[in-house]
């Protein structure tokens, strides 16, 4: 699984990254977390940062940040749809 955190480097973007890391750890799934700060790359997905992209799909953008449980949910929904495919 591929997770991207979109943000030019403001406080909320760091928080988003931490949330994603914690969620992955707690879910015990195999995932890479990449921090995207290049504006061109961010703009492919959204105009409102911070953003959370899971497997190329935009799951969250803008303020306020989702809570830890919500982040887990967002990532989990992608895990499940993957399994349905296999």
């Amino acid at each position, binding site marked *: 699984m591929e997770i991207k955190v979109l943000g*030019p480097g403001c*406080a909320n973007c760091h928080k988003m990254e931490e949330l994603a890391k914690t969620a992955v750890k707690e879910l015990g799934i195999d995932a890479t977390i990449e921090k995207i700060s290049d504006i*061109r790359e961010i703009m*492919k997905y959204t105009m*409102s*940062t911070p953003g959370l992209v899971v497997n190329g799909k*935009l799951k969250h953008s803008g*303020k306020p940040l989702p809570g830890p449980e919500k982040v887990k949910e967002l990532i989990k929904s992608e895990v499940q749809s993957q399994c349905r495919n296999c």
Partner: protein
Amino acid sequence: MLKEFAQHLTYDVIKLGHGSRPADALEFFIYDTLKIFLLLSVIIFVVSVIRSHFPPEKTKKILSHKKEFIGNIFAALLGIVTPFCSCSAVPLFIGFIEAGVPLGVTFSFLISSPMVNEVAVVLLWGLFGWKIAAIYMGTGLLVAVIAGLVIGKLKLEKWVEEYVYKINTGQGQEIVKQSFRDRLRYAQWNTADILKRVWLYIIVAIGIGGFIHGYVPQDFLVRYAGPQNPFAVPVAVALGVPLYSNAAGVIPIVYALMEKGLSTGTVLAFMMAVTALSLPEMIILRKVLKVQLLGVFVGIMTVTIIAVGYLFNAIL
């Protein structure tokens, strides 16, 4: 009902004597705190529901079909409801320009968004009455429209960093579909988030009103920036430009200045300068704007805000 509750707390629970100064102050404090937090919760919630219908992607689409002037008015109005934080200013700016939103219209949006919002309006309403709130909102929108129009007329597209025009995001950005339940949940979540960030400033502001009320001597501030001084407005604006705060953060200062006897126009101009122009935002915008355009932007905003300040000092 709120009034009775405040009286009950002051005289029956805390048991302060009737008519004493601390009792008056406390009653005023409890009443105002309750009133403002109730107003804030309800209005932020309602605005959040409306806001969930206007993600930046949609605003961009609406504005890309608009001509100047009408576009500026729409942009200023949409600035009230579209969620925006200064760290999103750059992607937002690029997104708008790329979608064909005229430069001046984009500026109208960027100006109105941090300056005119529900938090500012509710706080002014709760502390100074609906007239001041309406005046602030009306003139805030006016400043955004005028400054945007002027920037549009000056044809300053050449002072936008070249790479902005080269970015092509394609049609990748999608609007996430939401049910009404999602919107309500978002509104609840957003209300809690905003209240968490602003409650302390509000308590401080009401505290100033409740406890310093009447005690504050007319000191040097009034001598230098009071109604008699014709330069009060430019001085207040010059002080406000480098200061950085959101609407809630500046409210305690605004209250203190009003208490000290500064004219309403001077104080509102100060508040606009603080919320609309700030050094950190300039640094962020420098990524997409050349220094010349930033200078023009700050110049036009400063002049417009000063004009608004004088206007209100003259008619109020």
